[in-house]
């Protein structure tokens, strides 16, 4: 049996290749020492393969295992949890290859490899990652095939080709399973990969934070509208509100989470759309005002934002319906309004003074707001991502000295002044605008679309949104940040080679948009293909969804595909031989039905004569057919299958369907 246990060369080759392919996508989040361990073990394994080194001793193996465990504990702080688990898994995968000796070891290695590929999906599930993973899976399958091949097989490529062929043939059934296999919610909660910092809005804001975001071209979310896409200037995507100001920083008050849902009245036409958002590690969702969603475990907080019970760690698809003209909290809540008037003591005296002056000048709240906006519009305010340093009284500095800043400055300053004037108001953080992608009819919103604006409360009118930035730099709202900063070159300073910087090159832009569209479809239809999406699709196809139909479709479809593959593999229609030969087989089959078999090695002539003797009544037809057959097949007469066929037909007609025994013996 020992000979069977040895791992064939081809298998070993492919397993070595597979190891590289499997580990590559993990490189970004593996600690450095694991990579060192990997390179060392791989080099050792290759030396064993070349008979220049021995297998590690049991003691050494044990040592390596313990060392790996300790290493994981040191670098990840624990041995459980997803991050540590993945490192452990990769470590086991690396060590297993080193000690791999028998086929059983190889099988364990291959199964471990599949698991490592699965864990890679938890970190990166983009379309490229998915396509890439075909490579390690093929290599692992090739390794598995190689284990079965006898030592005679010597061409690794053939093995890989076979593996790829198997996968290709499995593809239709896999798609069927993917579409029809019922999706259920998580059975128990599992740790998610974390630690990789996500750029995006946070729950507190200094002006500089948004300036940082504006350097990033990373995607925040995409939105597909069921109908017309609303004009850009109306696309104010609310994320959260910031209602606490400590003199420098706007943040959200913790009380918000416990407040009851606000009351609001639907008005005007609703807008329906779906959003696929990128992982943000934050619990809030993005939506236009005022939004309702069917997403489970999500509720509307008192500041009208949507918030999930858990942070968004993976791409998330949700459906939203918004009523832009809804009346929000026309009666207000006393605690909420009190929070919307909070100001820190002893800062920005000039601004407070100015607010008092404005209040005296404009007793009406709306007049005051308009005057304030006019002030921003008419005074020499500059929209820039490079504002000067501010002193302790940041609002004073901005309003009266520098007058240079961007949305966060304008929103912060305006809220400050409104509060100082006794009007309840707060800063809304979110995104504004987005890029319309005509390929897929959706809007994509990136980090540099981050924006801050203001909403203030009026009795009976409720909360009203207002955007001071629009007064200063209307192009920011109408066409986007890049236009607003056209002269400044501070747009996306951090990433000089991002394709977003080359939007002016039409063809490049076209490719970029198409690629983005592909990614979006991938997210919506593949990554987002979970319970709700599946239900919706199946309902669209079948009208209603019942287990019976699902099973029938799954089994029936699978059987159909299998039948196709079987046909393709076995090719039953391919018969060997010339047409005459096939006709002779028909002749044989015809006679076989009447108990006359051609013996092994019997020549056609002898068989025909025997048949003629056994079936004397049909002898003329039998002999006639044989004569023509001989003439065409051996005597070199022109081949005429038609003649043979017609003679065969005559014989068939002459033969009764079933021959009585009497007939045969005559």
């Amino acid at each position, binding site marked *: 049996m020992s000979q069977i246990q040895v791992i064939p060369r081809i298998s070993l080759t492919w397993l070595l290749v597979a190891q590289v392919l499997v580990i590559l996508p993990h490189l970004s989040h593996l600690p450095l020492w694991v990579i060192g361990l990997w390179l060392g073990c791989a080099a050792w394994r290759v030396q064993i393969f070349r008979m220049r080194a021995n297998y590690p001793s049991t003691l050494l193996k044990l040592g390596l295992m313990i060392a790996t465990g300790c290493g994981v504990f040191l670098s990840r702080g624990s041995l459980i949890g997803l991050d540590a688990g993945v490192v452990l898994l990769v470590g086991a995968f690396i060590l297993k290859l080193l000690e791999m000796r028998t086929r059983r070891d190889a099988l364990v290695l291959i199964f471990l490899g599949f698991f490592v590929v699965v864990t890679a999906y938890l970190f990166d599930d983009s379309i490229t990652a998915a396509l890439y993973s075909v490579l390690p899976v093929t290599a692992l399958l090739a390794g598995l095939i190689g284990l079965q091949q006898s030592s005679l097989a010597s061409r690794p490529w053939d093995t890989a080709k076979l593996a790829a062929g198997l996968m290709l043939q499995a593809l239709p059934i896999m798609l069927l399973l993917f579409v029809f296999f019922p999706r259920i919610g998580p059975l128990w909660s599992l740790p998610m990969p974390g630690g990789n910092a996500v750029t995006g809005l946070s729950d507190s804001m200094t002006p500089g934070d948004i300036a940082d975001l504006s350097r990033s071209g990373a995607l925040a979310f995409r939105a597909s509208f069921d109908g017309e896409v609303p004009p850009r200037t109306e696309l104010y995507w609310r994320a959260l509100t910031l209602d606490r100001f400590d003199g420098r920083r706007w943040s959200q008050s913790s009380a918000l989470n416990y407040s009851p849902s606000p009351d609001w009245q639907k008005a005007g036409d609703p807008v329906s759309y779906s959003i696929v958002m990128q992982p943000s590690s934050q619990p809030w969702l993005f939506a236009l005002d005022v939004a309702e969603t069917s997403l489970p475990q999500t509720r509307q907080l008192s500041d009208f934002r949507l918030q999930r019970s858990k942070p968004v760690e993976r791409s998330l698809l949700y459906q939203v319906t918004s009523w832009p003209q809804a009346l929000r909290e026309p009666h207000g809540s006393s605690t909420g309004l009190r929070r919307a008037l909070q100001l820190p003591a002893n800062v920005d005296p000039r601004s407070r003074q100015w607010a008092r002056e404005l209040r005296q000048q404009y007793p009406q709240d709306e007049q005051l707001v308009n005057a304030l906006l006019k002030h921003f519009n008419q005074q020499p305010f500059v929209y820039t991502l490079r504002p000067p340093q501010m002193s302790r009284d940041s609002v004073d500095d901005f309003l009266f000295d520098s007058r240079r800043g961007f949305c966060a400055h304008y929103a912060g300053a305006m809220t400050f002044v409104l509060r100082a004037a006794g009007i309840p108001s707060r800063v809304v953080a979110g995104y504004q605008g987005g890029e319309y992608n005509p390929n897929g009819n959706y809007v994509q919103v990136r980090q540099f679309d981050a924006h801050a604006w203001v909403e203030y409360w009026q009795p009976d009118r409720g909360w009203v949104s207002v955007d001071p930035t629009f007064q200063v730099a209307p192009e920011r709202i109408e066409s986007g940040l890049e236009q607003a900063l056209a002269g400044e070159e501070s747009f996306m300073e951090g990433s000089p080679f991002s394709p977003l910087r080359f939007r002016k090159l039409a063809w490049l832009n076209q490719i970029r948009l198409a690629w983005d569209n592909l990614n979006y479809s991938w997210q919506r239809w593949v990554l987002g293909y979970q319970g709700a999406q599946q239900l919706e699709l199946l309902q669209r196809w079948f009208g209603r969804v019942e287990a019976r139909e699902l099973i029938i479709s799954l089994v029936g479809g699978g059987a159909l595909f299998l039948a196709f593959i079987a046909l393709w593999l076995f090719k039953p229609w391919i018969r060997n031989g010339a047409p*005459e030969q096939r006709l002779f087989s028909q002749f044989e089959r015809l006679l076989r039905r009447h108990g006359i078999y051609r013996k092994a090695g*019997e020549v056609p002539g002898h068989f025909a004569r025997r048949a003629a003797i056994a079936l004397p009544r049909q002898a003329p037809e039998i002999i006639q057919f044989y004569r023509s057959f001989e003439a065409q097949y051996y005597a070199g007469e022109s081949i005429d299958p038609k003649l043979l066929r017609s003679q065969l037909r005559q014989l068939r007609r002459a033969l009764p369907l079933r021959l009585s025994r009497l007939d045969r013996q005559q």
Partner: protein
Amino acid sequence: MRRKLEACLEAVNQVLLGKEPQVRLALACLLARGHLLIEDLPGMGKTTLSHALAKVLGLSFQRVQFTSDLLPGDILGTSVFDKDSGQFTFHPGPIFAELVLADEINRATPKSQSALLEAMEEGQVTIEGATRPLPDPFFVIATQNPVSQGGTFALPESQLDRFLMRLSLGYPARGAEKALLLGDSRRALLPQISAVLDHSELAAIQAEVPKVRVSDALVEYVLRLVEATRTQPQFAWGLSPRASLALLAASRAWAYLAGRDYVIPEDVQAVLPSVVGHRLRERADPSGHGGSTLVQGLLREVTPL
């Protein structure tokens, strides 16, 4: 022409009772311009068959009894000094007959055997530097005792290959033997046989035989047979291309004798045992005589279609 061939067979069968298939094969062998090896115990009518064949075909006949002291010169001929002319004159040996019966060829030494076989192969003999052509037609019937009999030199495989066919006459059927016992001495009948064919007719027939049509399908069958001997492990070695050519030639002659101008698988099967039986050996027993069982296996397992 074919009627004459039938008459030939008829005449030979008169002399050699109950051996129609063998006589027919022998004639086919001759028509295919091949040589014949008859392997049998003494007294089974080998000599009678050869003699009768020579008679009906109008061929000159010589018989050489091979013994262990036979020298090559005894077969090929020698130059003898003629006192009258003062020169060497060549006395042709028995090989210069048109039909030579080499009786009990395995009794002679290998040297004498090869002298005959080389002459058969080349159609000419070289004696003392002079090359002399053999007559046309030239047909050798060699007989051989089964090897298990003591005191013989069995022909090596390479030499066996030079015979187109190997036949075994076997014991006559009971009825035929009774007729043999009751009737005249068969040898006595021999002088009564008259030639049916003359030289030109025989030459014409021999020229006709290669024109017998062999279809593609039939060649495929022959190829399958040959391939089977080369690939199946029970064969010690496969058939040579010479053997496949021989098989085709013999099948043509057989078809011609049957009055057809094309070959059908029946013809191949009819000549196969005689043509390949002596060229095959079982792997398990390369010195033995597994040939005939192997041929039966071939006939059974290689499909004619």
